[in-house]
């Protein structure tokens, strides 16, 4: 028995490490992708000097970041100044723990005994609440960093970040509630499993999706909601005083957040690792490769599908960034409080009505 537990433990550890590594790798190459996408949309070529197609550019950037002088302003509160980027990075990395990256990996622990390990760091039954909790902690990193810098512009950026995140978290939560009403579960894995095949939530919740993605942009401080760091007004916002790897952490945390929220969008609205025709593929694979190997290969395909969806949304973030200009602050607040929150409430009412009246109607037709 101890043997089987150890194997499960090892597989779980590997999954956690792989998810961690992939998150970091994606964030790292997002910086490269961002520059390439920006360049392509402006009819340029982008970084292409470091390695083939500039693929080593993130490494070069990292080396640059490491070797820069690590400056701490004399008037800052030193410990908080260091704590800021650490908090940002920590919260950014914690979120990816509850995202189901794939179905499950099967292996034979003992003859006739097949274990099933889900491809997910931890499957908590309150996954969405966990994500929300961690994401709202994320604003502390920015707030602490901006305040500890003892710089007007940093503080302004931090205040903007805090109020923006709080405002948009509300409508984000309200948009999710409609999904929760449909699925009746807070576990992200449950939500993904209910979108089996091509039965994705986007077809039931287009309005909710638009609200959610808008709020996700605001939560990640991405253009058109990048007011906390808007260069033209606040120099660099909350990270004005930061240099070296501390600045690197802030920038890196933004890219991790981007990837994680893309993963959230694709698992909540675009079916996660589900794709049309997945049952047929799985049956074919099990038929040709056997029960265990077939299932594992099908899981791998699902994982790649999920990954592709997430990367598309990472691209979408960049696409929007290089299309839209920044909102003015009052426009941002108007949109958040007067636009999205009422809309999200209307969405909840519509969803409730559909569940109460439309679903039995459709069901009776189907019978």
């Amino acid at each position, binding site marked *: 028995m101890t043997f089987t537990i150890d194997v499960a433990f090892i597989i779980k550890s590997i999954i956690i490490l792989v998810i961690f590594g992939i998150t970091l790798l994606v964030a790292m190459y997002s910086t490269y992708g961002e520059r390439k996408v920006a360049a392509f*949309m402006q009819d*340029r*070529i982008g970084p292409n000097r470091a390695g083939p197609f500039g693929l080593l550019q993130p490494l070069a950037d990292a080396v640059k970041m490491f070797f820069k002088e690590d400056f701490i302003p004399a008037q800052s509160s030193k410990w908080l100044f260091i704590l800021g980027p650490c908090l940002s990075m920590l919260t950014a990395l914690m979120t990816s723990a509850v995202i189901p990256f794939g179905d499950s990996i099967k292996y034979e622990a003992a003859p006739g005994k097949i274990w099933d390990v889900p491809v997910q760091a931890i499957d908590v039954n309150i996954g969405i609440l966990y994500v929300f909790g961690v994401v709202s902690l994320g604003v502390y990193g920015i707030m602490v960093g901006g305040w500890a810098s003892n710089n007007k512009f940093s503080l302004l950026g931090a205040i903007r970040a805090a109020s923006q995140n709080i405002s948009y978290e509300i409508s984000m939560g309200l948009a999710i509630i409609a999904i929760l009403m449909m699925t009746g579960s807070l576990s992200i894995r449950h939500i993904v499993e209910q979108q089996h095949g091509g039965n994705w939530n986007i077809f039931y919740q287009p309005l909710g999706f638009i609200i959610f993605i808008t709020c996700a942009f605001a939560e990640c401080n991405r253009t058109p909601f990048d007011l906390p760091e808007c260069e033209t007004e606040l120099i660099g916002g909350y990270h004005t005083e930061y240099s070296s790897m501390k600045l690197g952490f802030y920038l890196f945390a933004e890219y991790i957040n981007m990837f994680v929220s893309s993963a959230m969008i694709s698992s909540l609205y675009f079916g996660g690792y589900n794709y049309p025709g997945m049952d047929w593929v799985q049956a074919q694979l099990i038929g040709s490769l056997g029960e265990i190997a077939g299932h594992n290969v099908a899981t791998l395909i699902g994982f790649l599908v999920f990954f592709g969806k997430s990367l598309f949304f990472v691209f979408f973030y960049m696409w929007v960034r290089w*299309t839209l200009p920044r909102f003015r602050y009052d426009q941002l607040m108007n949109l958040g409080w007067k636009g999205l929150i009422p809309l999200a409430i209307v969405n909840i009412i519509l969803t409730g009505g559909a569940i109460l009246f439309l679903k039995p109607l459709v069901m009776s037709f189907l019978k």
Partner: protein
Amino acid sequence: MQLTNRSKQVSNKQMTFAERIYLPAIATGLGITIKHFFQKKVTIQYPEVKKNLGPVFRGRHVLKRDDQGRERCTACGLCAVACPAEAISMVAAERQKGEENLYREEKYAAVYEINMLRCIFCGLCEEACPKQAIYLRHDEFVPVFTERDQVVWGKDLLAENMNNRYLRKAWTKEEAREQDIKGIDAKPRTQL
């Protein structure tokens, strides 16, 4: 009073619903950027690929020789006077007997120096020269220098190499314009 025909009547009409929900406009914008995403890039990969900058681009200087390889410069100093950056300096000398195959005129520049840090590549020296002796090459730049003694270029660097003469399609702006208008693909040649 209308000054130009580009003036536009400003309208304060209420935005339509489609304009107010903002999303159609975003979609249009995204369409424009994605179109550019797949368009041909305009970048020229500079050190590897060099663009032809036209027949009268003003690059590094060259002190022309005539067809027999004699220096054309007569050290009149008009280029130095014309130079707005005061980059040119020279020392004149008299041609001795037996030097007729070296210098075309009776007076020549024994020393001819251009300070490449001062030069602004305006081409006024070229225009001032009565002997058509100094030109700014259209095909070569002043290379990047890192040492102080590389800054001032003497005759060793400036004088034209007879084994590899400097050719160009048009020797004046007027000539270049004429070729351009008539669509002539002129042959590169050594001198006006």
